[in-house]
């Protein structure tokens, strides 16, 4: 089951309200995405913690219906 990019963005923003989210459909197949997420909430957190926050926002879809989401996270400069 594939997911729409807009749906991924919505879920991330629901979980992390100030997030600036950029989503790329890497193969144009609705199944392999890259997401770049920038949020104040990431400040002072490790990369593992930042990614866990995004996975949390995706409510269990990561690794399930969302097969491949390459993730890059950062706090604003």
């Amino acid at each position, binding site marked *: 089951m594939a997911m729409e990019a807009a749906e991924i963005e919505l879920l991330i923003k629901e979980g992390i309200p100030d997030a600036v989210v950029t989503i790329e459909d890497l193969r144009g197949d609705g199944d392999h995405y890259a997401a770049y997420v920038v949020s104040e909430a990431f400040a002072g957190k490790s*990369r*593992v913690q930042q*990614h*866990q926050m995004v*996975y949390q926002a995706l409510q*269990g879809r*990561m*690794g*399930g219906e969302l097969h*491949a989401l*390459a*993730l*890059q996270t950062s706090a604003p400069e």
Partner: protein
Amino acid sequence: MSENLSTDRIQSEINENDVVLFMKGSPMFPQCGFSAAVAQALTTLEVKFKGVDVLEDADIRQGIKEFSNWPTIPQLYVKGEFVGGCDIVREMFESGELQQTFTEKGIEHAA
């Protein structure tokens, strides 16, 4: 019951091996591009690591996700600590942070 057994097995792999990669397939024959990428980075750095093939054990495959609160495989552990999955390891490898982590933790690796 099986959940406890898989947690025990995961914990002992991590305790007994300085560098452990939970992956799909083996280091020689990875069955997934993401697992292959991490195994490749470790091989490039000439780091000795133990590969645990989650495809051989459904309990480990599920258990490792709960163990680390991390939904995907591969997962890299160094000296008992969860370092990250494919994206993080790749980012760290490219920036030189991975090499630095190995140095700090006293793991032999190529420069």
